[in-house]
């Protein structure tokens, strides 16, 4: 998706609501401040709690080559001092008020949030607005926090062969787009991240016209609007903010395959990911078809791969199909098979491919599709129980180039998808010439350790969550 979000929002130099509450059930309102900051308010008055989030349209895929990990590094450094607050002040104030706070970085965005009693909202806004423009970094901050992110990389990646495998596989998937580079960064580049790199990223991307404010909970939209105007409205827009344009992928001309061996692996598996289109503003049909395809193939115990490979043949102990259409740019559709004991990875892969081929012949079980659609409808009801999740839904979508209308029409788009459309999407996407297939294997030759009955791996039930937290 290549929409000129920053520019588009900046052009909306209005402080009038441009969308009203979407429906009686979904108490969402939205407006923009004069400086281009977009604001979304979601009402939920069941508990006196508010979630306050600021999302920047800047993630690891917006980094400059050579400083991978800087988006996430900056996210950590945002908890250091500002011109007006000492280091750690924000988290301390949140804790003193009984709240919680954190932040996370993804390919397409960086977000900061606090969850507090609703009457503390103004304080949260003041502190968040302050660090949007007044960050002050010392050389000691840089050195210490760089050690912290390297330890974070150790936790998430270096200590887990499955995570290393996913990282290598993703790098093979994207030749040109920065989705191929880990959010947390390549270790050799992380070791040299410095103050300048962090501040460059900060100055380029942290500004109200590149940010989205989401306030969800026991609040009134008018009051939030007034507060936001008063606090965030004072911040200057960045006039030099550029449209978000990233390098796109070249034509893939050959199937890619990789084998990753590690002595720590104990549960081998096969993972396949195909390049696939993402949700685009006003154009979500293909993504909806792929979402349903993933459910039909591997989303539940009654899905096609599960039935054929776990129930009928017991070839696998686990199968899954996964698709996340919410990305700014081209995404992937993934299949995973964890073979039963005694089944080789190549036999498992062959069985998976044969089963997918059979699915293409059989077509869709209409009752299964109807059940999936029923569940999706109910999911909208259950979703209203967690206002934090709703806040994340809107914040991430807007940061990834979608609109509020897209978020609100998504459930209807899903309901409207036909069997033919799903099969057409399957034919387009399930093509090995546009895919990477990876084997995660035990390294038999490597020296073993003393724990006699050892080996590991998290057969990712789904590709691990693509975000990294503070």
């Amino acid at each position, binding site marked *: 998706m290549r929409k000129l979000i920053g520019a588009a929002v900046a052009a909306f130099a209005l402080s009038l609501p441009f969308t009203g509450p979407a429906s009686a059930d979904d108490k969402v309102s939205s407006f923009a401040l004069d400086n281009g900051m977009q604001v979304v308010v979601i009402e939920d008055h*069941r*508990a*006196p*709690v508010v979630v306050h989030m600021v999302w920047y349209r800047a993630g690891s895929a917006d980094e400059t080559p050579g400083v991978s990990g800087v988006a996430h590094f900056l996210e950590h450094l945002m908890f250091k001092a500002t011109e007006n607050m000492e*280091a*750690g002040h924000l*988290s*301390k104030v949140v*804790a*003193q*008020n*009984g*709240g*919680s706070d*954190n932040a996370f970085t993804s390919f397409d965005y960086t977000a900061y949030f606090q969850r*507090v*009693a609703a009457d503390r909202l103004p304080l949260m806004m003041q502190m968040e607005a302050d660090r949007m423009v007044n960050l002050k970094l010392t050389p000691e901050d840089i050195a*210490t*926090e760089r050690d*912290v*992110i390297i*330890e974070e990389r*150790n*936790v998430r990646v*270096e*200590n887990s062969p499955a995570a290393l495998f996913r990282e290598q596989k993703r790098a093979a998937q994207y030749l040109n787009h920065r989705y191929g580079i880990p959010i947390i960064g390549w270790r050799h580049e992380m070791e040299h991240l410095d103050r300048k790199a962090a501040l460059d990223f900060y100055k380029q991307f942290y500004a109200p016209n590149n940010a989205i404010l989401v306030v969800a909970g026991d609040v009134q939209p008018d009051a939030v609007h007034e507060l936001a105007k008063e606090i965030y409205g004072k911040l200057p827009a960045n006039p030099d903010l550029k449209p978000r344009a990233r390098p796109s992928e070249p034509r893939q001309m050959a199937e890619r395959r990789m084998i990753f061996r590690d*002595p*720590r692996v*104990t*549960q081998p598996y096969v993972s396949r990911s195909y390049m696939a289109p993402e949700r685009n503003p006003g154009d979500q049909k293909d993504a909806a078809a792929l979402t349903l395809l993933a459910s039909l193939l591997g989303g*539940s*115990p*009654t899905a096609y791969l599960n039935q054929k490979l*776990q*129930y009928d043949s017991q070839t696998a*102990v*686990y199968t899954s199909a996964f698709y996340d259409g919410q990305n700014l740019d081209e995404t992937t559709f993934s299949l995973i098979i964890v073979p*039963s*004991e005694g089944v080789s990875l190549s036999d498992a892969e062959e069985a998976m491919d044969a089963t997918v081929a059979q699915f293409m012949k059989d077509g869709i079980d209409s009752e299964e599709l109807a*059940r999936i659609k029923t569940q999706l409808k*109910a999911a909208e*009801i259950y979703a209203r*129980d*967690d206002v934090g999740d709703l806040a994340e839904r809107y914040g991430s979508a807007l940061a990834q180039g979608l609109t509020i209308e897209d978020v609100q029409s998504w459930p209807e788009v899903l309901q409207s998808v036909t069997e033919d459309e799903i099969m057409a999407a399957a034919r387009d996407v399930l093509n090995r010439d546009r895919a990477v297939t990876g084997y995660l294997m035990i390294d038999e030759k490597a*020296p073993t*350790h003393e*724990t006699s*009955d*050892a*080996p*590991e*791996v*998290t*057969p*990712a*039930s789904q590709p*691990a*969550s693509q975000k990294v*937290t*503070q």
Partner: protein
Amino acid sequence: MKMTAFTRVLTAGVVALGFALPAAAKVDVQEITSPGGINVWLVEEHSIPFTALEIRFKGGASLDAPGKRGAINLMTGLLEEGTGDMDARDFTRATESLAASFRYSSSDDAISISAKFLTENRDQAIALLRDSIVAPAFNDNAIERVRGQVLSNIRSDVNDPNAMAGRAMAEMLYGDHPYGSDESGTIESVTALTRDDLVAAHKAAMARDRLYVSAVGDITPDELGRIVDTLFADLPAKGAPMPDKVTPRFDGGTHVTDFDTPQSVVRFGQPGLALEDPDFFAAYLLNVTLGGGGFESRLMQEVREKRGLTYGVYSYLADRALSQAWVGSVASANDRVAEAMSVIKDEWTKMHETGVTPEELQDAKTYLTGEYPLRFDGNGPIARIMANMQMMDMPVDYINTRNDKIEAVTLDDVNRVARERMDPDKLTFVVVGRPQGLSN
């Protein structure tokens, strides 16, 4: 097979959920007794047309019979795999058609069932749920399939440094007691389980004498009473006896499991306190200052913020049904972990000797009393809190008195408890990795 999210606040908070629950929120809890005599806590919330129902059977995997480790875990995994004449697929299809959600899990202390169902087809959903609880089929093919999944999970954890550290710590502290081993069992024990073992596990662990139920949502007391009778009337009245309590063996040493991985994973701890202990809240407040999950804790400040030795370091009071411990975790690169452990030991000693400052105590109180009402923010969360409270024998009015108990703790109390109950000599470390420069 779920990836754990690393949010510093959540890691400790989740553990804390087991014991230090609910407080000063606008929660109107009704204690009701069903016509059949089952006690249930209810919060009516009619604004969204669904109900969250939380069910606990106290005892959980600790009720595994000798030599049958993993039976209760495997049995719980089979509850949704077919009932009566429905096979696993029929059951799943039926559940999906109703858009109901049933989640079954077991832990050392309980079997937990979390159900959500829509108002429009509630009775049908309850009929399905009832069959899965009372009349699971334990078909042979389902047993083999789920056994394969469990074995795969066990294999996956064998070389996971976090799981390894957890197992090493449990074994050291609890030996042959059920707490001393993983509730999933071993490759050998799970492979040997028979259908009879699973039927016995079901009888032992899912009986009415250990049942706790709560509901939040679009349902009235009368409807709820009728539902719980439907769900549980046909369970046996009495299950297996609870295992004995156990005292964890903290020897004050450092125990290393050699494993070739770049970052050492560490668990540490000393004896803990139970909720009934008069000093519990003082210790709970001390722990907030020590390593209670926020950036502000002394351990986070000293190990992460000042020295950059780790991504996260936490401590918490683990008040479990049969044992109490005061434990924590940290992970650092092999060449830096010795320093991280040394800082932790120093901080433990320092707090033991000199306690906390009035400001630290005030900050901890404000945090705990402010955070408590924020937990009650959804049907699901409230139902979970209430079920756990019941299982821990906490009265409904704990929700209203809990913050007062925290406010009542004085500086003298916490600093006395620091002297009397924190014990650096017993502070014991378990390390998995290739740590460099450890003295013992």
